[in-house]
């Protein structure tokens, strides 16, 4: 097959499976990868009497979700084709592979496709007697949550949710507890993103949108969808404020709040720019009297090679901080072990 886009791939049709093979080789100690249907499972699954934390979604957002499979985070991830939600049988296989008798929590980003496919899977798994709960994360303030949209999208908050709930499950918190914790996190995390350049889905062969040299998309999702507004690129101070202000106003976050600040790159953003943006966000939060207790800076939920960034702010308390600090050992996040 002719390569139609400038990417390090062999064939758009096999890109996800080919990448999974590399991931399996790179992290054989950590992960077990199955291909049909595609599921990334932690090597020691099923962990008996532990709630299985499962997520998934389209590929192209790496390290999300496969990079978060491992001790203290996800038990399994279901990678769909690029930007396309996985199918119910992938999710069902993930449940079967990770069920340790304590039930499973499905973490679903709020996109019609993801919701519908996970919904179908949950029905199938329930029919097999596994206690399956589903939480839908919808932290993207760029989308009006109203009757007139599919609701807010799940974006950067997903990473924090998976870490925190994964830590709780690892400690033996039961399914009710994990579900309640997940709903708590979802209730107090907000995000927004921007793109300086589009991305190209391998099989599409063309960028998802075209931007002039001085334009950016504000309020993008993570699938190369255009954002809500196209605006002129300004200095970083302006860009960061354009993301942070709506995030803070939404919950709202107020002086005295303690937060985790997550500065995320969209895949093609150099780290020097991410740190630069992070520094500005820290300053803006300090100016508002909001205390940054923890931070994460890096490209953790991406849109292929898109240049851009998102900011996620999670309101934390001692419980969430402790869960955030708890040991985690995955391909993309690791500490305390």
């Amino acid at each position, binding site marked *: 097959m002719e390569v139609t886009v400038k990417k390090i791939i062999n064939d758009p049709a096999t890109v996800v499976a080919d990448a999974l093979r590399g991931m399996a080789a790179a992290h054989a100690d950590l992960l077990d990868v199955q291909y049909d*249907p595609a599921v990334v499972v932690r090597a020691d699954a099923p962990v008996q009497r532990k709630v299985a934390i499962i997520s998934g979604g389209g590929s192209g957002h790496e390290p999300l979700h496969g990079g978060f499979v491992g001790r203290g985070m996800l038990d399994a991830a279901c990678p769909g084709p690029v930007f396309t*939600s996985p*199918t119910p049988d992938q999710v069902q296989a993930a449940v079967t592979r990770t069920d340790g008798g304590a039930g499973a929590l499905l973490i679903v980003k709020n996109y019609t496709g993801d919701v519908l496919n996970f919904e179908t899977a949950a029905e199938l798994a329930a029919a097999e007697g596994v206690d399956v709960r589903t939480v839908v994360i919808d932290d993207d303030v760029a989308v009006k949550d109203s009757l007139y*949209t599919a609701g807010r999208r799940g974006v950067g908050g997903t990473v924090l949710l998976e870490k925190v709930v994964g830590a709780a499950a690892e400690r033996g918190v039961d399914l009710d507890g994990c579900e309640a914790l997940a709903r708590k996190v979802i209730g107090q995390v907000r995000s927004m993103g921007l793109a300086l350049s589009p991305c190209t889905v391998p099989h599409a062969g063309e960028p*998802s949108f075209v931007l002039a040299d001085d334009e950016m998309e504000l309020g993008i999702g993570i*699938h190369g969808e255009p954002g809500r507004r196209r605006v002129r690129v300004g200095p970083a101070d302006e860009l960061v404020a354009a993301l942070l202000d709506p995030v803070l106003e939404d919950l709202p976050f107020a002086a005295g709040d303690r937060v985790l600040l997550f500065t995320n790159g969209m895949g093609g953003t150099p780290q020097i720019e991410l740190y630069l943006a992070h520094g500005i966000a820290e300053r803006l939060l300090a100016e508002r009297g909001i205390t940054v207790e923890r931070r994460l800076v890096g490209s953790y939920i991406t849109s292929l090679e898109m240049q851009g960034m998102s900011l996620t702010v999670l309101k934390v308390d001692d419980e969430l901080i402790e869960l955030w600090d708890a040991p985690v050992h995955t391909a993309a996040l690791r500490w305390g072990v």
Partner: protein
Amino acid sequence: MGCTAADVARALRAVAGVVAEHREELVRLDREIGDGDHGENLNRGFAALLSKLDGDLPSTPGAVLKLAATTLISTVGGAAGPLYGTAFLRAATSVGDAAELDGTLVATALQAALEGVVARGKAVVGDKTMVDALTPAVAAAESVASTGADVAGVLTAAAEAAEQGAESTVPLVARKGRASYLGERSAGHLDPGARSTSLLLRSFAGGAR
């Protein structure tokens, strides 16, 4: 003379061909207001269906439709996977184990498909989705079926109405699915799912005899 399991299989093969032909068009439409994968998703599903249809064929039209349903559900992904999958599943259930489908049964199946899509996706007419193509298609199918039209007649009426329904999505602002994130910017574009629904029905109509 009605439509047998073999006829349904033949029609589905034709649909697979049409989807492959229009893959890029559907990708392009979805890139404009979605994420550019609709053509790829459907094509992956119908290609998988093609190889399934090469195996032992189930003996009733309903069973063939059910095979299509489960194949689409487990291979398409995205929003379209569960929606089309549910549509085929409900259609399959609605025709039971009839050995042949006539015009009335086809209209019933289309109605069941629509109900399935709405049950899953909760879209109404005007939301700029496949429902905008399927709803008028069902109405037209029922109307000609009630006058005794045969399978070809019912499907042709449905296809024509679906085409108009799809076209009607162009000026709309999307309220469901990915396109809804664009708000007003979604207006002025044909909905990819509505377009694929009308392509499917046109192909069925062409294949019916």
